[in-house]
């Protein structure tokens, strides 16, 4: 495989691994926010921001962790036929069907970029009493989806290498 493609795969996967390892710990941020919600309700005035903050954290968790979960192979496949194929056949089929993944992610990204631009344009805020700005979470979604998109391209490159009998 051309050197720059190999470099691309190495760098992308290293970035995705690190981002995912950090995002992985957002589950404890999520738990802390929800715990504060329980405590503030029991002892003080109910906090107004916990529910939305928790929702934002959860989105960050599964979007920023998305590329790493792809690397981990956590996303289930229906292996009725797939499981019986040789690695080469699997790679050949994946080279075709990976475009479904790429297309889906690209569509989300496109919509996300438009929605983020809109959020900036009108200074969009959530309609709760807390009224957080919506742009930051939309940027998080765009970033995570973009990383997943890059990861999908890595899979494509790896599959082509497999077909050529090479390993990256």
């Amino acid at each position, binding site marked *: 495989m051309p050197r720059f493609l190999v470099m691309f795969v190495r760098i992308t996967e290293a970035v995705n691994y690190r981002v995912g390892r950090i995002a992985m710990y957002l589950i404890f941020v999520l738990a802390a926010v929800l715990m504060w919600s329980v405590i503030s309700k029991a002892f003080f005035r*109910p906090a107004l921001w916990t529910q*939305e903050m928790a929702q934002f954290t959860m989105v960050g968790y599964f979007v920023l962790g998305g590329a790493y979960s792809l690397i981990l192979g956590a996303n289930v496949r229906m292996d009725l036929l797939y499981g019986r194929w040789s690695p080469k056949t699997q790679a050949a089929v994946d080279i075709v069907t990976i475009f479904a993944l790429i297309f889906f992610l690209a569509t989300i990204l496109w919509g996300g970029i438009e929605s983020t631009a809109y959020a900036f344009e*009108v200074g969009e805020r*959530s*309609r709760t*009493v807390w009224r957080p700005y919506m742009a930051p979470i939309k940027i998080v979604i765009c970033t995570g989806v973009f990383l997943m998109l890059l990861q999908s391209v890595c899979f494509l490159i790896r599959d082509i290498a497999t077909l050529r009998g090479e390993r990256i």
Partner: protein
Amino acid sequence: RAQAAPIRWRMQTYAGAALGEHVCKPAIELFNKIAAGQMEIELYYADQLVPTSELFRAMQSGTIDAVQSDDDSMQSPTEVTVFGGYFPFASRYSLDVPVLFNQYGLKQIWEEEYAKAGVRHISAGAWDPCHFATKDPINSLKDLEGKRVFTFPTAGRFLAQFGVVPVQLPWEDIQVALQTGELDGIAWSGITEDYTVGWADVTKYFLTNNISGAWIGHFFANQDRWNEVPEHLQALMEVCFEQSHYYRQWWYWGGEADLRVNGPKLELTSIPDEEWATVEAAARTFWDEIAAESETKAKVVEIFKKYNDVMAKSGRPYRYG
């Protein structure tokens, strides 16, 4: 005889299915029937195609052709958003809304504001008044203190000065939240909706004082899609939506009175008029705060003031005392 394929529109309302049955569906069915195959509007309820918070954008971009909502719920990025839904004490009766729009110039302002965003404001109509329904009786302003209440953002901002704790939850979770004690009450609608959507089953008391006499909601369409519709169907749509405003006028007006008197589930309580007058006075201060935010907002507040002034001077039956 070859008939052209019908024009198909997708309309999404802010209302869930139980409420949409009354506030939207009859008008759409009527339109489809009279349009006799030339055009068909498909109606979707809250969050069905896109979440309500993305409703405006989806209409702007044409994913959805038309929308029924108040400005506040769909977060329209206009200067008039804060007046949609319930603006405290802006109106007393549901008839005030069409008068304000058609005789006092709000219609122009709304049309212009939405035209800037590529959206056609078709017409505005009135819904129900905004009352509290609670688990404990409310007999004075003091009883409101510390109550966790589900309400609109603008109303919540206003009510916070009386010690109310506004809580935001997804609309569908309200009934459960009342059941499980997360909420003490709601300030979201009149008694008709309390019964229609099931909140009357999980609250005990209904406060007869309201912070607004009529909710303001609208029909909107994507401007380009609107232009593509032949003139006679545009006119038909306008007529059917007017009919929907009319339907809600009597459905709510009759329902509010009937359920207060004959409804078996909620006991009525009241805060004395003199005490409630302080809330109304606080609303006037709130109006001025809003008016200071922009020129358009000042214009709308000015109209509210002028209108309420005329009503106050005209005597019975417009205003008593």
